[in-house]
């Protein structure tokens, strides 16, 4: 930090006063005619623009939402109780913007960029507009790099690419946020800036998320934007746009890869519905306004893999949608499903039967991520989805008490183990090399001799063994991103050496 003496500071301030140029200020001013419930109607402001930022006498900010013949409808960002009828409102001529800069990394802020943690004041480098037209075709390139979530079931069967929009959808308490948090934790040393946007969540939940990310050393590359349930609907409405704008800053200005999690867009839609109804916009299906699709499509369309000429950065979006009783055909879920490039569907049945993450691989898809999947993973996981689909059919058949032939029984047992290896503890994302190794031993049938209950113990010990005794395997995967014949051979040697010892040990324990 630079050291200044008192006289120098005084001189600097004097200089500021001397450099002041008195100019005639011409402003557009209107009057509040009605205020309440976070909205205000303002008379005048004939030249106001949609989305323009307005300033009240007491410094509170509002955004122009409705343009009527004699007045404008605005949504207030701050405390609307401080605003009185008859008060004057100044138009600023600017669109709503959020302060951005490197200082913002590791911070918890509200959607207008004010800190919500106990850190110092944020000095913005720039202001980025909340709303921005999504870049066109010329600025884009197809998604080809993978964004590893660190979760076996997702990286193997529903791979996500950098620049993709992958929806996480499911009922309450099915582990949607857990997937998002694990993905953030897994971005450590992966050159990805993460933005977590909490919309309409409990403050305690956001505090717990911050604490978790801090414990796992993930806050250094993460920004949390908190528009909790106690905040106004206006702040909840602008929160995802603010998150997107901050990620865009890192993508456009620093050519970085970014990941934005919108948790969740169902609450965002509800906040927008509240504002629209208060501003007397006509309600449509489920009382949502007519432009509810555009609300989410214009946000998610800003996810992008930039062309080389534009710096090659990316913005990956993981929107979250909460369904009611598994109803995916409700209005908002169908909208967001149709906008995104695939969805990860979580079910309470799987969650409560102990399969966590509770991903239903049968109906979860990734439309563009396949091209971004590492070759190593492609090599082992190509048949995994089919195997599991087959398993579900066979299992249903077996439940009827039908006697199965020997081959089918063997297949069923193997598939049970495959389901078992896809289970993963929370906050334990796994590197690609380890995921490939575990799926490889499962697919190749090495786990047939181990009981299902021992799979997790086996996985832990085998990966430890591989790390200590076969370091070259990790090196090959890291350098080639492919499961070369050499790597495959190492894996075979490792499992053949490790397995007998493990079986013997577990039998000893039993006896």
């Amino acid at each position, binding site marked *: 930090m630079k050291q*200044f003496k008192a006289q120098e500071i005084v001189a600097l301030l004097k200089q*500021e006063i001397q450099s002041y140029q008195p100019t005639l200020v011409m402003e557009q001013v209107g009057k509040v005619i009605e205020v309440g419930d976070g909205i205000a109607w303002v008379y005048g402001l004939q030249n106001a623009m949609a989305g323009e930022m307005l300033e009240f006498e007491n410094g509170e900010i509002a955004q122009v939402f409705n343009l*009527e013949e004699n007045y404008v409808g605005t949504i207030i960002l701050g405390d609307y109780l401080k605003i009185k009828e008859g008060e004057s409102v100044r138009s600023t001529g600017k669109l709503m913007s959020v302060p951005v800069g490197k200082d913002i990394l590791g911070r918890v802020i509200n959607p207008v960029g004010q800190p919500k943690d106990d850190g110092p004041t944020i000095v913005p480098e720039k202001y980025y507009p909340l709303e921005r037209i999504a870049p066109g075709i010329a600025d884009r390139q197809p998604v080809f790099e993978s964004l590893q979530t660190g979760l076996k079931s997702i990286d193997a069967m529903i791979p996500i690419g950098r620049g993709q929009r992958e929806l996480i959808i499911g009922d309450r308490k099915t582990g949607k946020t857990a997937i998002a948090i694990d993905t953030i934790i897994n971005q450590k040393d992966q050159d990805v800036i993460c933005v977590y946007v909490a919309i309409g969540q409990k403050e305690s939940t956001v505090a717990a998320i911050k604490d978790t990310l801090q414990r796992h050393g993930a806050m250094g590359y993460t920004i949390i934007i908190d528009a909790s349930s106690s905040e106004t609907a206006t702040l909840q409405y602008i929160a995802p746009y603010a998150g997107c704008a901050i990620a865009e800053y890192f993508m456009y200005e620093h050519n970085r890869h970014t990941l934005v999690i919108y948790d969740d867009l169902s609450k965002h839609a509800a906040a927008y519905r509240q504002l629209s109804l208060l501003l007397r916009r006509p309600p449509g299906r489920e009382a949502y306004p007519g432009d509810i699709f555009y609300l989410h499509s214009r946000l998610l369309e800003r996810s992008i893999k930039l062309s080389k000429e534009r710096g090659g950065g990316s913005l990956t979006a993981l929107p979250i949608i909460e369904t009611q009783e598994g109803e995916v055909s409700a209005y908002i879920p169908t909208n967001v499903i149709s906008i995104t490039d695939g969805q990860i569907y979580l079910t309470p049945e799987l969650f409560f039967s102990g399969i966590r993450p509770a991903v239903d691989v049968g109906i979860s898809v990734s439309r563009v991520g396949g091209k971004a999947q590492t070759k190593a993973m492609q090599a082992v996981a190509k048949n995994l989805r089919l195997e599991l689909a087959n398993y579900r059919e066979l299992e249903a058949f077996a439940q009827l008490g039908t006697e199965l032939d020997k081959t089918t029984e063997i297949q069923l047992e193997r598939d049970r183990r495959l389901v078992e290896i896809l289970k993963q503890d929370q906050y334990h994302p796994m590197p690609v090399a380890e995921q490939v190794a575990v799926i490889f031993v499962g697919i190749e049938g090495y786990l047939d001799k181990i009981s299902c209950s021992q799979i997790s113990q086996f996985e832990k010990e085998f990966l430890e063994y591989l790390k200590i005794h076969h370091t070259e395997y990790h090196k090959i995967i890291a350098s080639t991103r492919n499961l070369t014949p050499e790597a495959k051979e190492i894996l075979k040697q490792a499992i053949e050496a490790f397995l007998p010892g493990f079986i013997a040990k577990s039998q000893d324990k039993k006896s």
Partner: protein
Amino acid sequence: MKTKQLHHAYYYATALYELAKEQKLLDQILSEMEELAQIFELVPQARQFLELTFLSDDVKQAMLEKVFGKSLHPILFFFLKILVVKDHFSLFPTVLHLYCKLTDESLGRVRASVTTAVPLKDAEIQEIEQMLSAYFHQQAVVSTFVDQKILGGMIVHVKDLWLDSSIASHLKRIHKKVSAKAQELAHTVELSPDYHE
């Protein structure tokens, strides 16, 4: 004023404006309405009486007839009667404002309010009128106000525009500029140990 009232007032004002325009009485009706507004300001009880909703229309109309029957132009007089019958007399100030706006637009006039710290001389008002007329390409009608709080300079309010060259606002802007610089320094600067000396 609520948005609903504004809607209603707009319909009344437009109807009155169109009728007055047809009969080429725009300015006469406007000046009579302004006089009425002044009377209601001086005798608020009269306005309150006409706004009472539980009184019968006959009583209120009789009062209107007695007080304004001979002094107002029939168009305005019947208009007031309609406001009374429809229980919308409280809209009168808004109707006046909107009627004035419509009339000014139609006659190519622009109204400006000029606030200064000391009263302006006639020549100064004329000069301001000329300047504003030239700027807006419309005939400016200036009304002046005195407010010592602005310290000096003047504030001109035309339509939605607010032209502020008052000393008070200049001082406010200097304060903002210096505070911003001080805040910026507070982030980048570490005070040397002799700061408090």
